[in-house]
């Protein structure tokens, strides 16, 4: 029960944006995607989300080919937090988050939806913005609104205030895909967002994929990491195996050193030559 790309290619105007990518998001684990700008990270996320169809290879979600799953079924098994979503109509923050309940509108009740929405708003630390008009928010605030929206979609019909059981009531795994979730956020909210995503993985067995740029965030919050470069996976594996100064230095073409953190563990720092 994974979300996996199997030998996926994506070609646009004759150029490979992804070539022969095989990658798996396992339930209960956080997979970080790392890579230089233009490496194909967002394209990979779009292919995994079913937004783009791969030009070669297949994507499977819970054992079924993505192309054979209806948009509604997909929406009930995975949520996406986009990099930027524009909305020119003055919905309130509460209403935008509530849109995340749409995949469950046939099976859920209004009370339950509102309860989930309120809880997500609280977790994303936007309670004080709930009645504000979405278009008037700052970039970082909008990011948190979309995180809350992705959370209420991800939770589905699971009551989050109850015990945090690993199962969702059904035996399919759920997935959360985050495209640079920390972009535009201040430091404390960056950690809050990543901690929330990790908690979804550890406490509810969600498979989380996130695109990150900060090596130390990968070290802290991810279990697995895949490094993309020019549309190809150049390295993947557990964080401790892959996140080595030598490997990162060669992929990012910039010297990277590991130094011991007095508080424990290591910190990766990049230095200009």
């Amino acid at each position: 029960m994974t979300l996996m790309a199997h030998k996926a290619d994506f070609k646009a105007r004759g150029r490979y944006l992804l070539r022969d990518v095989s990658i798996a998001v396992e339930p209960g684990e956080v997979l970080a995607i790392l890579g230089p700008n233009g490496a194909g990270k967002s394209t990979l996320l779009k292919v995994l989300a079913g937004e783009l169809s791969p030009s070669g290879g297949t994507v499977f979600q819970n054992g079924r080919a993505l192309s054979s799953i209806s948009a509604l079924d997909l929406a009930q098994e995975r949520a996406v937090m986009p990099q930027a979503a524009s909305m020119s109509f003055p919905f309130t923050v509460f209403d935008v988050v509530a849109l995340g309940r749409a995949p469950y509108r046939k099976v859920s009740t209004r009370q339950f939806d509102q309860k989930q929405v309120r809880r997500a708003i609280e977790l994303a630390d936007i309670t004080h913005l709930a009645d504000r008009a979405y278009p008037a928010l700052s970039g970082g605030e909008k990011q948190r609104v979309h995180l809350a929206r992705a959370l209420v979609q991800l939770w589905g019909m699971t009551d989050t205030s109850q015990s945090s059981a690993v199962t969702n009531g059904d035996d399919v795994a759920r997935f959360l895909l985050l495209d640079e979730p920390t972009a535009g956020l201040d430091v404390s909210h960056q950690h809050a967002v990543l901690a929330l995503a990790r908690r979804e993985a550890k406490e509810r067995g969600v498979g989380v994929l996130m695109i990150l740029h900060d090596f130390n965030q990968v070290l802290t919050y991810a279990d697995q990491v895949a490094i993309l470069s020019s549309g190809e996976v150049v390295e993947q594996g557990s964080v401790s195996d892959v996140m080595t100064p030598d490997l990162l230095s060669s992929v990012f073409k910039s010297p990277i050193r590991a130094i011991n953190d007095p508080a424990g563990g290591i910190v990766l720092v990049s230095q200009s030559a």
Partner: protein
Amino acid sequence: MQLPVNRSSLFLVLLMIGLCAATLMSLGMGGVEISVTDVFVHLGQRIGVAEVGIDAFDARILDSLRLPRILRAIIIGGGLGLAGAVMQSLFRNPIADPGIIGVSASAAFGAVSMIVAGHLILGSYYAAFGPYGVPIAAFGGAVLATVVISILSRQDGRTDAAIMLLIGVAINAIAFAGVGVFTYMADDAELRNLTFWQMGALSGNGPTDMPALIVMALGIAYLIRLGTPLNLFLLGEAEARHLGVEVEHLKRRATVITALVVGAAVAVSGIIGFVGLVAPHLVRLATGPDNRYVLPASAMGGAIILTAADTVARIIVLPAELPIGLVTGIVGGPFFLGLLIVEKKRRRL
């Protein structure tokens, strides 16, 4: 959080009452004044509640002139208001309107080309189409314009709103130029007919309007239920898909049906501008942007606006009557400017 929803539902009920009131008033007003009581008595007699009817002359006016006309106003106004609201969501742009992006003008171009050159285009088949040729040509024009707009304004899977509006400007120019060419070619009798298409009228063409009105009613019934998917659409096409909307499917259906509704409206009544723009904006002031309320409210609001505008058109220059497109333009244009100014102030941070 409980309150806003209830307020929006209440507003829908108010609109319904407003529509009934507008209908009753409009039935009574015109060249011959008929009192509201008489209108009630007549309607009561028609559905078998009242025993005695009213004056036979008044009854004839209601039955054969005003009732059908107001029915047209309600369906066309409702269709245009709803079509405007749907297009604004589809293109994710509050300024979209069948008139502005050239759909109405293309429908009129289709109709006009059929009136003037129908016997040339269709030859011996012209007679077979008879009175249905013009509405079908109007449909054709509306669908063609909508398809052109949605294909040309898309790039890499996104609809660019600015490009869409510019394409609309171009289509408007082309369609009006086409109408101009046919106006130049037309003879006197055709010319009178053409004016009607460009300025709009609810006088109708008798029973031949029926198919178009039925198409509109069916289109309205379909579009009015798209509230939630269109809400998701406002987040963006990719996001709507993430949330379970079959985006391409919805877009194709909604676009074609909106074009059908607009084409049918133009086929019955010519170009009536601003209803599709003003009705959704007005109702959003009360309901907010939630399409689950905006769609039905826009339909009812459009019906009220057009019924009221038609009443004005009928009584303001008695015994003659003003083309209704002029009324909606004269009242709607400045009104919309005022709305934009209010909205601009409201959006200040």
